[in-house]
């Protein structure tokens, strides 16, 4: 049926309609490709040609987008495309065993499509469900808490070719797991409250309140929000944009998922307030593809807000127009970087731009654009209501207010916790019921691994900055397994634009593998560190600049652990010598002593 469609005019009609529905805008490329991928399980070559013409863009731009994003494919995936998260927290609940079980039961190899085209299976980067591991995606929709029993159920559904709507809802159940709400999470403002408060006080006066609040970007980088808005506002331009960065891809973080599930109105209100202040009439929420399950709900909330005149023309009679569009990502961690996100919004591969100019000067379609985190908007909405002081009363000198953390890993109560900045790691560990702790990964793989000697350190920009990821490891865990997982993650997610990150993260992956697998020798730690410094110091953007952090932060704390992995020899090859003879042995039918090589000299 599908094959006949491709051969016939149906696909042409479908794509033509898609393009028309998107006003033939090339900025809608990702959304159009998502629709094609969903329907045809890949992007057929004919579709690329047709789209290039309809959208008036080179076919190479479309090819690049398909090749760049993990969720687009040139070759068909199965009718049921199953992806299993390979985040460290998934590995901690036995991801490897479970995906192999899945593979066996489905009779499909990992990474491949079953011969009958019904199902395909693969690994994927963290899906933002570390509080309900093992997690995955079926045709883009989140599935959680996978066990052998739940896998059996999925296998049965797949083999019966049961439509997704008829699968047990329980498989798709995503819990909020809000364990410890504080300042922000306890607020339930009424619709329009922040907007009205903003206009009542005055736009610039509200900007002053945001400045007074000391609010800094919650994505992790911590740029002062009021300054971003101010610069954006001051740029001379006929249009400005406000963008909500909901691409939380840092392994271990899932707080934006919860904020959008349960606080979306406030987030949208924060965006609206920001738009009024900077003078934007259009906003975007860039929602990571992994959060497809939130899409319809968010669309419904936006529709309700339009009905209530909280969006649209002349919002609440304040003479201000603004609307918000949801744009879905398609599997690329780099799009959390603001300029890569903007490229992605424009329908391109997410490659970070050169700076300057900064997005506040030249962002989306080269217009001034303020990109802020979901949590930043939530905080801003509440600051607009309660004033800057209300917020600044909490926190430290340089880090005001609270921070929402996503806590996962080895603790009794995984989930969402909100803390005033300045809270110690020990307090947090006590609250979440962690014992026998080896260390904590604060801020995800790009952050810092802290050992159990450092639990008096604080969550704060001036000490341990974090976008919200907080992964606890107990003493049964092996630090090198963690580093191994993170190094593979970065090599997979590097956009490949600059040499040090493109080549460096792949070299780093190999070098970490060599040491972890026990093939390291005397010079290998020096080589490892040298490579890390090179990637850190010369990479184009934050991804590369932090990609070596897992190694650097653990090497600093556990040098003896790394040393213990080394053989007491001066050098060992980085590839398996004996394995390298395998083909020759097989073809020559030999297995004598001379047909083998020791990895190191006797």
């Amino acid at each position, binding site marked *: 049926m599908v094959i006949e469609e491709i051969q016939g005019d149906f696909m042409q009609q479908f794509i033509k309609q898609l393009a028309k529905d998107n006003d033939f805008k090339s900025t809608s490329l990702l959304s159009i490709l998502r629709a094609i991928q969903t329907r045809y399980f890949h992007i057929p070559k004919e579709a690329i040609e047709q789209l290039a013409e309809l959208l008036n863009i080179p076919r190479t731009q479309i090819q690049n987008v398909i090749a760049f994003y993990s969720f687009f494919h040139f070759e068909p995936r199965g009718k049921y495309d199953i992806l299993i998260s390979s985040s460290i927290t998934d590995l901690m609940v036995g991801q490897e065993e479970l995906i192999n079980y899945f593979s066996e039961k489905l009779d499909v190899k990992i990474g491949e499509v079953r011969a009958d085209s019904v199902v395909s299976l693969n690994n994927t980067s963290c899906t933002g469900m570390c509080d309900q591991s093992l997690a995955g995606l079926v045709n883009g929709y989140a599935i959680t808490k996978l066990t052998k029993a739940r896998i059996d159920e999925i296998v049965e559904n797949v083999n019966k070719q049961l439509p997704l709507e008829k699968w047990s809802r329980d498989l798709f159940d995503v819990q909020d797991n809000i364990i410890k709400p504080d300042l922000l999470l306890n607020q339930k403002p009424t619709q329009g409250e922040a907007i009205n408060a903003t206009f009542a006080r005055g736009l610039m006066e509200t900007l002053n309140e945001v400045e007074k609040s000391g609010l800094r970007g919650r994505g992790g980088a911590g740029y002062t929000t009021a300054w971003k808005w101010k610069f954006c506002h001051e740029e001379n331009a006929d249009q400005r944009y406000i963008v909500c960065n909901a691409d939380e891809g840092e392994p271990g973080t899932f707080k934006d998922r919860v904020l959008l599930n349960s606080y979306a109105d406030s987030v949208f209100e924060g965006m609206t307030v920001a738009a009024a202040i900077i003078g934007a009439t259009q906003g975007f929420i860039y929602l990571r593809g992994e959060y497809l399950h939130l899409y319809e709900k968010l669309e419904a909330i936006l529709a309700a807000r339009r009905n209530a005149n909280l969006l649209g023309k002349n919002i609440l009679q304040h003479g201000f127009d603004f609307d918000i569009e949801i744009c879905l990502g398609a599997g690329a961690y780099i799009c959390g970087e603001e300029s890569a996100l903007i490229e992605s919004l424009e329908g391109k591969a997410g490659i970070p731009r050169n700076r300057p100019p900064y997005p506040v000067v030249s962002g989306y379609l080269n217009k001034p654009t303020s990109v802020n985190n979901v949590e930043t908007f939530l905080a801003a909405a509440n600051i607009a209501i309660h004033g800057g002081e209300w917020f600044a009363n909490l926190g430290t000198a340089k880090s005001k207010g609270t921070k929402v953390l996503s806590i996962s890993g080895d603790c009794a109560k995984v989930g969402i916790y909100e803390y005033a900045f300045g809270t110690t790691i020990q307090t947090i560990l006590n609250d979440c019921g962690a014992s026998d702790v080896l260390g904590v990964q604060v801020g995800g793989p790009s952050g810092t691994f802290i050992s159990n000697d450092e639990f008096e350190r604080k969550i704060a920009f001036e000490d341990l900055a974090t976008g919200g990821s907080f992964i606890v490891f107990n003493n049964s865990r092996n630090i090198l397994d963690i580093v191994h997982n993170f190094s593979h993650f970065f090599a997979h997610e590097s956009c490949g634009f600059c040499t040090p990150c493109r080549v460096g993260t792949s070299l780093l992956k190999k070098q970490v593998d060599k040491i972890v697998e026990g093939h390291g020798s005397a*010079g290998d730690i020096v080589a490892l560190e040298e490579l890390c410094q090179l990637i850190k110091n010369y990479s184009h953007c934050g991804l590369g600049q932090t990609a070596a952090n897992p190694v650097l932060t653990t090497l600093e704390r556990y040098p003896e652990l790394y040393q213990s992995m080394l053989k007491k020899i*001066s*050098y060992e*090859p*980085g*590839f398996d*010598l004996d*394995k*390298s*003879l*395998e*083909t*020759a*042995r097989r*073809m*020559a*039918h*030999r297995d*004598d002593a*001379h*047909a083998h*090589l020791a990895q190191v*000299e006797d």
Partner: protein
Amino acid sequence: MTNKKVKVATTSLAGCFGCHMSFLDLDERLVELVEHVQFDRSPLTDIEHCSTDCDIGLIEGGVCNSENVHTLREFRKNCKILVAVGACAINGGLPAMRNHISLEDCLNEAYRDGLGVENAQIPSDVELPLLLDKVHPIHEVVKIDYFLPGCPPSADVFWKFLTDLLAGREPSLPYELVHFD
């Protein structure tokens, strides 16, 4: 320069002996060289194995089979300074261009399916070294101290490098002597 002669060993792994030929281009300078240098294991001497106290090992060619690995290890074990000589030793060179093709295809083409192959069979004599999946530069198998690029490095490169070492200087090549071709 000291009175005791410096022991130099040389070999060609997956190479074409072009680097050795280039070495011989030292011509009359060879006479001066042997004043200070004694050749140990080398195709020039026919000595089969390295003495345990070699000073300098010059390796031409990359590593393409099990015998290359053994030879390279013998050199590393017995030479104080090991030098990768020429493009093949440094990056695999021309032999490494087979790395694009699977070893299975290579062997099949050469011994089974290729044009004009008679009595098709993959050689399996235990005396024959087995081929590695890929051809590797020698620094991926043992630790290397110096690299002399070139295909081949000119006689002047050998001369400059060895005279620097013999004089106790850190070897350094002027711009015109560094080339990758």
